[in-house]
């Protein structure tokens, strides 16, 4: 039982730390739209 508490706490800390910058996949799974961009690249022809 004590082990379960420990693992639960550990998982919580990892989750909170990961969620400081939520992964885009997680955002998308939760209904976010992640899109758009425009990128201009300069290169030598």
């Amino acid at each position: 039982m004590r082990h379960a508490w420990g693992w639960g706490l550990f998982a919580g800390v990892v989750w909170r730390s990961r969620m400081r910058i939520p992964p885009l996949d997680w955002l998308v799974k939760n209904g976010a739209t992640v899109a758009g961009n425009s990128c201009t690249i300069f290169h030598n022809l």
Partner: protein
Amino acid sequence: MSPTRQIVPIRATELRDWRIVDLRPPLIYRRGHPQGALSLSRDELERSLFLLPPRATPVAFIHTDPGVAEGAAVWLAARGWRTTGWIAAADRVLARTTVEGAEAVTLWAPAETLVRERVRLGRLAQRARRALDLACGSGRNSVHLARLGFEVTGLDILEDALVQARRVARSTGPLLGAVSFRRADLTTPAASARWLRPAQWNAIVVFRYLDRALLPRIERALAPGGLLIYETFLEEQARIHGRPRRPEFLLKPGELRASFRDLEIVEYREGPDSEDNRLATLVARQRKKRSAG
């Protein structure tokens, strides 16, 4: 050099590769936002370009309404930012982000030359702290110098620029030194006599400003051992980018170095920066003892 437009899916990257601007109301932002996200409303954004990172840095916008988020991304791309993206998510989803409350976020960057010279400047600030940022504009260079430990005075003729500069200083975390901003018209004798007294400053920085009449006074205003960092546009800039156009604001090749020939030149170069601006850059030191004559 030829520009080509290329679309890169934002999902091929991760959020930490982007600088994030959260366009939601501040109250909602404080309930949970991605770490390092700057809180700005859509209206503020248009007046706050000086708070954003350089144009080469990817910027992503967050809002609950995809129209607002996408609109901001397109608007910023039209202003020259090379990579912009957007994320629209419900507040309840973003509220699960574990950074809560207000956060001192700095996305802006000082002039590339000041970043390059930070070691030399940092060493100087340990023993001689009085620095002047002449024509300081929105004050990013002044605040950068204050972070390195200088006691900085930023001068500009435009009150609007000083309002922005004070905002930049407020939004930055604690400074090692200090910064204050003053309005001054250096073309008047009274202002130049007050702010450019002989040996008044240990460091003077001037970016994107040229008044040839002031150059000898700037040189004299440097204390022995003091550092001058001067960077502004060459004539070539007007031919390539059209602005600034007036010849009195543009340097001839070699002119900047020749204007400060009594200083010890540490570094001098002419050419394009990362945004293809054509600039002359001078880093020079006041001699410990003035040469006779």
